[in-house]
């Protein structure tokens, strides 16, 4: 039953991920990315990580992608004009080599994890696994310090955004 849901979801995710790369218009790419994130949220639900799933939608698909869309519309990126400063063959070659390294590294890591046997048998999960309550309990007892540091990170980001945006206006 779970597999029956997992495979279509995973297939959709891969398809949309490809769509991000292949799509010509930046807005189309962004929409594919959003659809991919929604599929990912579905997979999180299958993994019993309900709270993370909804965070995935709220933060990534909801907030960060809105920012992406705004930037695309603000910069008026329309279609992909060829980058004049780079000859496209050189660029493509470099891209291929770099992404080749990435894929190789990723495959190696996946193989390592598979061979380590960590995920062989699905451990029986506690009943409340993945709910907001469980995540919160861990976050606010064990990981208090990272949580408070996160607030400072947000503060820095806030100040940075204002400094950047306001300087341009003046």
């Amino acid at each position, binding site marked *: 039953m779970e597999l029956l849901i997992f495979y279509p979801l995973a297939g959709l995710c891969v398809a949309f991920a490809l769509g991000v790369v292949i799509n010509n218009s930046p*807005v*189309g790419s962004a929409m594919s990315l959003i659809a991919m994130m929604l599929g990912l949220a579905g997979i999180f639900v299958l993994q019993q990580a309900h709270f993370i799933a909804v965070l995935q*939608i709220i933060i990534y*698909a909801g*907030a960060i992608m*809105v920012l992406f869309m705004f930037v695309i519309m603000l910069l008026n990126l329309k279609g992909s004009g060829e980058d004049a400063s780079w000859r496209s063959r050189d660029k493509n070659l470099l891209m291929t080599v770099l992404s080749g390294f990435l894929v190789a590294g990723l495959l190696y890591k996946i193989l390592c994890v598979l061979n380590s046997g960590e995920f062989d048998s699905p451990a029986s999960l506690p009943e409340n696994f993945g709910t*907001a309550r469980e995540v919160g309990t861990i976050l606010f007892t064990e990981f208090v310090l990272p949580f408070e540091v996160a607030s400072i990170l947000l503060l820095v980001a806030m100040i940075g955004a204002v400094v950047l945006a306001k300087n341009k206006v003046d």
Partner: protein
Amino acid sequence: MIDDAIEFLEPYTYLIIGSVKALVIAGALLGIVPLLVWLERRLMGRFQVRLGPNRVGPFGLGQPISDSIKLLFKESIIQGSADKFLFHLAPAIVVFTAIVTFAVIPFGDPITVMDQEIGLWAANVDIGLLFVFAISGMGIYGMVLAGFSSNNKYSLMGGLRSSAQMISYELTLGLAALSVIVLTGSLSLIDMVNSQDSYPNILIQPLAFLLFFIAGVAETNRAPFDLPEAEQELVAGFHTEYTGMKFAMFFMGEYINMVTMSALVTLLFLGGWNSYGIPVWPIIAFAGKVGFLLCVFIWLRSTYPRIRYDRLMTFGWKVLVPLSLLNLLVTSVFVVL
């Protein structure tokens, strides 16, 4: 024969019940929209000392039906330079998110039919409230895409404006709901209703109620926050280029969102289906409260003029967000003491 059929269907009971519930809820939502349009036009007519639609059918009830048939057979013009796929996608996203959001809204205690306990909701998820925020937040893309794909400056400006408005007021919506979560200790909408069985939350959280409702009105793009369709400046905002049914789909989304928002306010602050001693069915109590809030929505529209865009944004960020943070702080002080 029938026993065989029942036995065959046994393992799929959940699936069947789920499908029937989804069908009923989606059907009810689609049925409520024309009714709501009719109600709004009639009430607006009364507010403005005129009659409103009263020719088609009794009390003009046939008006919305004839309107929707007309819209369906109108030409759907796609402006030449528009991005065709995204242009079609935008209204679909708006309707999709509006309907899916309603999936987690409960409207009564579970009932028992044929030894099966059936909950009066499409899905009972323990993170109900966050699910509503997450999916309704996706509705923004409908507006952004409609604005972007139309290739028209009014549309683009309208799309940008309404999405900026929606994200600003989404914050207040979440922060105002937090004080109710603090009191309840759960994100499940059913738990929230059950925790209000002696008195509704509005009595102890009047400020949160006010903030939530204001943000809700802004979130559904209703007057006085209907900046996306500020006719005087933006023609019709992000749906300037839309015609026929696709145009109507944006309004369909808006009206369904209105129902969802009223239901959410009812569940969070007005005690849901608790009737507090008045002898009515729980579901009638719930429907009555939602109906009253819908009338308030219409009442607001005919009372207040549209607020200016810069005022809208500063109001959201400088008044509503700090106030809701403060309200949360005060609530938590009271709870901890």
